[in-house]
């Protein structure tokens, strides 16, 4: 049998369709998300799903904070409300970390904290997250 251009076209197209079908079914790329038609999914209405439109839940681990004395106390006290990213993004003087704890206690519903725990948290924050930005403000001669 002679191979004509028609044969080539038919074979190529058939191969292409087969590959596309296998790809769509997820057979070729196992790690890829395969789209499932909505009809086969459980119907979810806005009224039934209070989490619709909310940010994904976020949970940190103790290890997300740098190692140091007071890490655990700091983690469990602060992450009741805040993600560690907020802590790590800040670099504050000891005075400011101290007044941050006051602010949380006085204005933002933080439960009372034992004096020993407070001292441990303050030591940890002041040591691990001191001011990092350099410039005229960082070595102010009037800053005790």
């Amino acid at each position, binding site marked *: 049998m002679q191979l004509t251009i028609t044969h080539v076209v038919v074979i190529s197209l058939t191969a292409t369709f087969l590959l596309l079908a296998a790809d769509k079914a997820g057979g070729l790329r196992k790690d890829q998300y395969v789209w499932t038609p909505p009809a086969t999914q459980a119907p979810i209405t806005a009224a039934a799903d209070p989490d619709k439109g909310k940010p994904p839940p976020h949970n940190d681990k103790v290890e997300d904070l740098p190692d140091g004395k007071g890490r655990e106390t700091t983690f469990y006290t602060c992450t009741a*409300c805040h993600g560690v990213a907020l802590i790590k993004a800040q670099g504050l003087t000891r005075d400011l970390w101290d007044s941050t704890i006051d602010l949380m206690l006085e204005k*933002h519903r933080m439960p009372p904290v034992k004096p020993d725990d407070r001292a441990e948290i303050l030591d940890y924050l002041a040591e691990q997250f001191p001011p990092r930005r350099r410039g005229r*403000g960082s070595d102010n001669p009037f800053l005790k």
Partner: protein
Amino acid sequence: MKSFGTWAASRRNLLQGASMATLGAIFPIESVLAQGTPAAAPKSPKLLEMDGKAKLSVLGDKPLVAETQAELLDDDVTPTDKLFVRNNGQVPDVTGDPKAWKFKIDGEVDKPIEISLGELMTKYPAVTLKLMLECGGNGRSFFTPEARGNQWTNGGAGCPEWTGVRLADVLKDAGVKPSATYTGHYGADPTLAGETDKPSISRGMKIAKALDPHTLIAFKLNGKDIPLIHGGPVRLIVPGWAGSLSTKWLKRIWIRDKEHDGPGMGGFSYRTPKKPIVPGSKGDDKDMAILESMPVRSIVTFPADGTRLAAGARKLELRGHAWAGDNDIKTVEISTDYGVTWKAADVKPPANKFAWQRFTASVDLPSAGYYEVWAKATDTKGVTQPFTAANWNPQGYGANPINRIRVLVEA
């Protein structure tokens, strides 16, 4: 690292038929890292992954706080997916018919009102305006040393189109008593600890601002129902003032006969020093004044910070936005030589009062090499942007230094 925003901006430029000079000159290939970092943002910010939102820069994930990269703020009207996200508490459950959502106005009024969103929409005329929403702490990361809180660059701002009714119209029905001087706002968001009977934040404003015809009880954002993450089904929009006044998930406006005292009022919260404070010190909260109008600010939205320009590029067509709280922008000036010389940009009038203003400029780049492009806006009161963040305060409000982006003209 390829910047999505740079590509998007570049593509838009193409679609709008920008000048060939710009097209030839700008080849955003990768971000230029380090080199005297004018912006204080981390070098590789975590990007937001959330349905309906662009890949904003995440400042905090609990509560979710995310700012918009300057190059993503290039649109004249900020699309919903590119609007920054700021939460002070948890996002509340909002289920059932949004039109049944109720809030009340009480306190120093003749007739307290409790009204559903559905009734509000039928009873009062709707207005649609492009209004600035800006976090009170926008620019905080420019302070040295660091101030407390989320480390915003300039991305805690946007100017989308809001539809709602005028708070003034509703207050007129309630009958504001002569004793009324202030408001206090409450939303449905639980505190970060999960309490639903305590406000996560509750701020207020002078009654005159509440009566401003641009202060809205809003229910649509860019023509669609306000998404939950942006405070839907109903929120306040208090343009030009700290975003924390624009209460999301609105439940109550308490009309008061004195300055409001909820969480977020007093102390160093949303207040700036009347007497300058030693940067990094505790300061004295008796010498503080409430931050009302946001300060004058400009951002270059095209090109992106860190853009590489093709060898031979000698002109840069740039653009951005400027705004100034209660005031309009009078001028925007551009410098490519660290402020030695300045050139006036073209500044368009705002779409309406409290909308940001577009500026464009064409600047010369005399040779290959590294340039910083600085933008400095001046408002209609003659107030301009400082060279560095000024009037340091512990919680970091009012930082509005001149905007700086870096470009490299390839040799």
